[in-house]
């Protein structure tokens, strides 16, 4: 049976979660909720590409979609709000993915903080450059955030270059960086505004390219994230585009509460001391530590897990294709759940399978 692109994404995610989390974990994932639980789950189930990629989703829409999947026999509810794929679901999903693979460059976790601001700056910079080369000063900017307007104005001034060269360089960088046979650059280009030409809205762009709105949205993100990959691989080659990428205000994207824990930890406090000082439960502080490990590459965990135990946990995890903590604990019975979670967090997706 034919399923929509969004249904395929949802089935794909449910397949990974495998009934171990409720359907609302998907809602939080799409929303990009900055909670330790959501962030850990995104890593645990290798769903980081989807983090904060569909914030317009609502609980109601999600529930409706799940009901539909169950009615169509593609998913089955195994406990309250927990679903797994049926055989038919798996088959349908595989069939669909063979025809329309999921976006390969999507990387919500890595890029969610810069995507929107990059797009705002890029669209405005293009519109301004286009009008500048046509010597048109009277036009209404397609962006109305004062912050973006000021930023782009400043950016153009900093380039210290004449308007024709600026536009030409921007064109050359874009035409090179967007050229990628695994994405659809036209999805981006139809939305751009310039001299006497106003770009399309997402809805119009979806209609004109013949994609349903959800698919359009993900393909558009895919295109931008592929563009980020290119730019960051070789920033010197794309100085203008690289300049548009907003440096995150916080280098470490931690939730606020975790940030506080992190500061205390850096001062040498133990988990118990932090819990006492912050009037929180020890388990909450443990969640924070796991989040820190997930967010900061190179954060040392030896003070929590001896290296020898770390190795044993890792081996057990590799043997177990399922990543249920319980199964790992059965194999390494002297390890605590906290220790297991730390090790899983440290090795993330990369060395997993």
């Amino acid at each position, binding site marked *: 049976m034919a399923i929509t692109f969004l249904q395929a994404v949802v089935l794909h995610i449910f397949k990974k979660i495998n009934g171990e989390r409720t359907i609302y974990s998907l809602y939080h994932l799409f929303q990009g909720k900055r909670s330790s639980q959501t962030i850990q789950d995104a890593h645990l189930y290798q769903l980081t590409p989807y983090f904060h990629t569909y914030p317009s989703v609502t609980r109601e829409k999600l529930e409706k979609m799940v009901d539909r999947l169950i009615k169509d026999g593609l998913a089955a509810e195994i406990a309250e709000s927990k679903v797994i794929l049926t055989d038919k679901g798996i088959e349908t999903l595989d069939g669909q993915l063979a025809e329309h693979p999921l976006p390969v460059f999507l990387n919500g976790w890595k890029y969610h903080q810069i995507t929107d601001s990059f797009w705002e700056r890029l669209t405005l910079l*293009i519109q301004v*450059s*286009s009008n500048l*080369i*046509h010597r048109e*000063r*009277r*036009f*209404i*900017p*397609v*962006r*109305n955030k*004062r912050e973006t307007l000021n930023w782009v104005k400043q950016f153009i001034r900093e380039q210290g270059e004449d308007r*024709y060269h600026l*536009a*030409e360089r*921007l*064109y050359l960088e*874009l*035409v090179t960086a*967007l*050229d990628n046979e695994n994405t659809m*650059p*036209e999805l*981006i*280009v*139809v939305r*751009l*505004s*310039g*001299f*006497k*030409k*106003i*770009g*399309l*809205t*997402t*809805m*119009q762009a979806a*209609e*004109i*390219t013949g994609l349903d709105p959800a698919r359009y949205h993900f393909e558009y993100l895919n295109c931008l994230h592929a563009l980020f990959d290119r730019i960051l691989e070789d920033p010197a080659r794309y100085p203008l585009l690289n300049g548009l990428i907003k440096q995150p205000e916080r280098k470490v994207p931690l939730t606020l509460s975790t940030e506080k824990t992190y500061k205390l930890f850096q001062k040498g406090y133990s988990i118990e001391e932090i819990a006492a000082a912050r009037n929180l439960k020890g388990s909450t502080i443990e969640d924070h530590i796991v989040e820190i490990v997930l967010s900061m590459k190179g954060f040392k965990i030896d003070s929590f897990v001896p290296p020898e135990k770390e190795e044993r946990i890792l081996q057990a995890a590799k043997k177990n294709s399922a990543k249920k903590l319980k199964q790992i604990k059965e194999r390494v019975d002297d390890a605590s759940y906290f220790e297991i979670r730390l090790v899983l967090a440290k090795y993330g997706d990369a060395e997993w399978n």
Partner: protein
Amino acid sequence: MELKGYLKKYFNFDEFRPGQQEAVESIIGNQHTIAMLPTGTGKSLCYQLPGYMSEGPVLIVSPLLSLMQDQVEQMMAMGEKRVVALNSFLTPPQKAKALENLHHYKFIFISPEMLGMESVIDRIKGLSVSLFAVDEAHCISQWGYDFRPDYLKLGEIRRKIGEPLTLALTATATNEVRRDIADKLLLEKWNEIVFSVDRPAISLALEKVSHFQEKQQRTMQLVRFLKGPGIIYFSSKKVAEQTSAYLREHGISKVMAYHGGLDSESRILIQQQFINGQLDVVCATSAFGMGINKENVRYVIHFHMPMQIESYLQEIGRAARDGGDSVAILIYSPGDEQLAFQLAEAELPDEFQIERLFTFLIENNVVYQDITRLEEELAMFCGFTDIQWRIVENYLSNLESVDYNQDKRSLLHLLDNRLKVKQSKIKQMLEWIHSQECKRAVILRTFNEKLEDRPENCCSYCGIEMEDFKETDASSDERPIGVDWKQDLASILLLSERI
């Protein structure tokens, strides 16, 4: 220099539009002025030009954030840099910066709530404001169709900042409302520049259909027949979306819906596409059109009846700004007024919500100064919409002392009055729909005017030749976009000789 010289110098126009010159002369003659000029005649020029001709900044109070934003952008697009908008769009640091640099600006747009703050008033006191302009001044009157309680404070504020020269602007205000404006702004003597609300270039048509489907079909027929561009107004976001989709499904491609439910990027793009001629039709709620300068709108269709004649005039007034013949068509089907009555009620908090509100206030012994902080909690507890909350918040935060029972009674009384005013406005609109005489004459009578010159295509009662509004050019299809993205990108960023 003569006045027209200044007009040429600052705006590059040769002629004033009706009423502009009189209003500007009145102000530079140092008289407080209430100017009622029809929509689409460029009211903003009435404070901009005197602003350029005198020392000191112009302070413009404007009730609608989006309108303010539009005006600021348009002035900036015209090359005026010394313009700023002070409203809740600003973050606290932005606001602090704007206040600090306030003396650098010539035109200061401000929302009434921001102007209510003591710190802001203190800052403005030191600026020697040359002109205090109140846009949409009818909002100050309880008899006006769009009463805004925070406008009531403007009189007192005006006194605090040293009673500067004042200009009250409105497109539609009856005699009663105009008197009320002067009264509330504490003007002792003033000059009135009143122009007819009549727009002879716009023919007024009323069509009756029997049900919703027929209305949709008729709308499509009209869109196919009429010369565009056009705007179709709806009272419901959902129906606006539906109709826009219905038109597109039937091959009318350059149509989009516009309403407050869209994200800001889409709103800007659709508005600009329409201005730029990439769209022929916009299916819009009343959020669309304010502050839009598009000269050549040829028709306005009302799919739902407006809530009052004043908004009907505002909305049809977006047609014919270039003076060319245009048509306004209101399509009525029996029972349409029910939606209007429902909307009027939904805008105001009901008795049950007010009961809950005071139960909460009494139980928690809340002082009114604190209620802004409790917004989320109270909105949830009483089920207030944004608009309802603003009404309640505004009312309570302006009270000096607390007497829960007395305050509840007076708030309920106020709300009851507002509802009655709104209902009578809807009835008036309905009477116009059902009236068996010249539609134009009825509207003018509402504003104590007499119809002097009847235009040829006056109204559906007097008779309209619809052929006059027919589309005659076959529409040309442009090159489809998205075929070659590299070429599309090149056409935006490279000059044609370089491609």
